[in-house]
């Protein structure tokens, strides 16, 4: 059966001001000058899997289609390789715009439950705030615990490799000035609330 989805866009689908808001963020200003040439998609190694191409995400953002953009896979697929950013003929920092969109999606919690990327990001930040550093194996374990046990199990072979090569360490790395890290990060939060 064909699933019928409305694809035409009405004005009511737009969230006016969204594009302007994104373009006012440091690093995202150049989006204004996009000429939709598609170079970003052309060089993006992950465009293989994307629902919207990076170019489309740029235009949808500029045209205030907030929901479409924040719900797209594209922003999560971006691996931050910066190929688009350095090749864009308008010097649009596409990777940084992707970051901005990811941040907004996380803030508004518009991503599938147990979706690993935001979970990883959150675990990562929590660990940094707590310890000042990252212990990769602990982070990976937590990620699997919070997303999918099964996926974790599938990687048993790799775990074995790591153990054999002495890279599997579950001793948490911590810095001395942990209080400093927390204080600095809180300062940033306090500023935002003002």
């Amino acid at each position, binding site marked *: 059966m064909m699933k019928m989805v409305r694809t035409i866009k009405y004005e009511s689908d737009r969230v006016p001001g969204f594009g302007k808001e994104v373009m006012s963020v*440091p690093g995202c200003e150049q989006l204004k000058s996009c000429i939709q040439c598609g170079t970003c998609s052309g060089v993006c*190694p*992950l465009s*293989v*899997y994307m629902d919207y191409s990076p170019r489309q995400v740029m235009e949808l953002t500029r045209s205030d289609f907030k929901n479409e953009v924040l719900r797209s896979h594209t922003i*999560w*697929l971006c*691996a*931050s*390789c*910066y*190929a688009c*950013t*350095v090749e864009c003929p308008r010097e649009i*920092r596409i990777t940084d715009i992707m*970051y901005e969109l*990811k*941040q907004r999606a*996380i803030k508004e919690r518009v991503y599938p439950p147990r979706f*690993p*990327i*935001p979970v*990883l*990001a*959150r675990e*990562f*930040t929590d660990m*940094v705030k707590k310890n*000042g*550093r*990252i*212990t*990769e*194996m602990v982070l*990976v374990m937590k*990620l699997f615990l919070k997303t999918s046990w099964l996926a974790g199990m599938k*990687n048993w*072979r*790799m775990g074995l*490799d*790591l153990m*054999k*090569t*002495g*890279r599997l*360490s579950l001793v948490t*790395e911590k*810095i*001395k*000035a942990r209080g*400093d*890290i927390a*204080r*600095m*990060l*809180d*300062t*940033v939060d306090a*500023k*935002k609330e003002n």
Partner: protein
Amino acid sequence: MKYSYFPGCSLKGLGRAYEESLLPVMKHLGVELQELNDWNCCGATAYMAVDEGKACVLAARNLALAEQNGGHQLLAPCSACYMVLNKTQHYCQDYPQMKETVDRALASVNLKYSGHSTVRHPLDVLINDVGLEAIRQKVVRPLKGLKIAPYYGCQIVRPYATFDDQFNPVTMDKLLQALGAEVVRYPLKTKCCGGSLTGTLPDAGIRMVYILLNEARKRGADCLATVCPLCQFNLDGYHAQLRSQYGDAVLIPTLYFSQLMGLAFGLPEEELGLKRAAIPFRWRPAAPVAKAGASVAVA
């Protein structure tokens, strides 16, 4: 030559072979690395995704510590750290509001970042400060006959590095050639390795790993040389998944350039973390050739 050294979390974890090989190689070249006291996570890609401001603040603490140390040159071997530290410098320069956020956060812990420090990658230091000639002189076991695909990955040259070309970097090519190795033409040298996607969206990540390895093999490479702990992990660690997804494990080893340097310099093998790789690297250079006037370190 003296630098502040910022290992980053990976070099203490999955990428410890990088540190294990880099330190003796740098020492052998007379480069003094002083590890930054009580450094913290650079902020990295994951943090950037959540909060750019905080990521910059985290990075800036390390930059401030480096300045406090009096060392204005900060060596960051991990590509992600290198990029984030550089990005923070750029953002603080370009965006007053970011500088203000950073200054305020640092002030809360009595630190100050003036913006004078520079972030350097080991490749940059090796090529521009140490020089290829000095490196060539240290080579006692040339990597003759070894075909290497030089793989730079993304964040070392993009978007901030100025020491090499963004599309066609050549510093590692030259370095490997200086070691006596044969460098194969590898057009994927700056393609993404999949980054953290190998863990989070394996289908997407593994495909990229497969293309990279497969193409290196097609071009006759004996191994890949890399500059980044995450790249090394991705290219080395997923042979099981590769086999299940593509029916082809592509068992081609991936080494840090520093490990290859150590081999060529004749440093003791056990110091180079060669055993840390999942796909073993079995090739060894011929026995050392005594050079007039050069002392030979025999493993």
